């Protein structure tokens, strides 16, 4: 595994068929992962609004947390997540930033904000615990 965070991030996404199914993208902004989920019809949960499926929003935020950890060299497995739905995620691109609140020896606590129009108006937030695996080499 590369020592370069951008390469680690690319490897993280490339290794995950489900992330490709969603159409998730990610890049580095400085040291931080900027995750993106372009809108696609197959992500819709409610055609009346229309809005993304709540499960898709939760899944995207979870992957953003794992991507943030992976970019910094930590392979992890999700222990638990709590997703708060704040406003409808509409038929436009969704963005996410993850913040590692604490990384211990075995567990990381990560908080993720997902938004569409502006970071100050989140559509959903996630916080979760992630079990750290052996360090990536």
């Amino acid at each position: 595994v590369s020592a370069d965070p951008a390469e680690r991030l690319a490897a993280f996404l490339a290794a995950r068929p489900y992330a490709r199914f969603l159409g998730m993208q990610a890049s580095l902004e400085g040291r931080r992962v900027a995750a993106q989920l372009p809108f696609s019809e197959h992500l819709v949960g409610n055609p009346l609004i229309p809005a993304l499926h709540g499960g898709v929003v939760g899944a995207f935020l979870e992957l953003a947390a794992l991507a943030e950890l992976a970019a910094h060299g930590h392979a992890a497995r999700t222990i638990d997540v709590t997703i708060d739905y704040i406003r409808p995620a509409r038929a436009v691109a969704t963005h996410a930033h993850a913040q590692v609140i604490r990384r211990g020896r075995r567990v990381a606590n990560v908080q993720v904000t997902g938004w569409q129009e502006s970071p100050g108006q989140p559509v959903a937030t996630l916080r979760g615990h992630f079990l750290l695996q052996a360090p990536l080499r």
Partner: protein
Amino acid sequence: MTDEPMSAATSDDLAWRGTAQSNALGVVNLDDLSGMRAPFRADLVDDPDQGGLANGVITTLLDQACGMAVGAAARAALGEPIEPRRFGGMATLDLRIDFIRPAKPGRDVIGTAECYRIAGGVAFVRGVAFEDDPADPIAATQAAFMLSDQMAGLG
């Protein structure tokens, strides 16, 4: 607080009938409508080496199974026939998921949910995801749903 639905499994009609996302995943309802099944597909895994369905698939499965359970409980509270029908909608407020163990490679995953209480227009739900036995769960969830105005008087 807006009355606008915030998340996807917004009306039981949609949860029961299937959404664009659940159709894309190939999710089908169980015959007794206690939940739904996500068939295994190789393009829906997190890790090709381990091979089980991705956490995200399970998140969507449980969100939608919870929505369907809320619809059933709301109908029961209204004294309506059990047959699914359209409501004004519901919105997921929050969803906590414990990922207890990875899903087994090559296996379908079933998500079931129970709306154990409606109070003050809020539905409280718990659910579980498993391959064969709910006592050997892959994941467990606890969720709260805001009911639409039509149902807000319930509980």
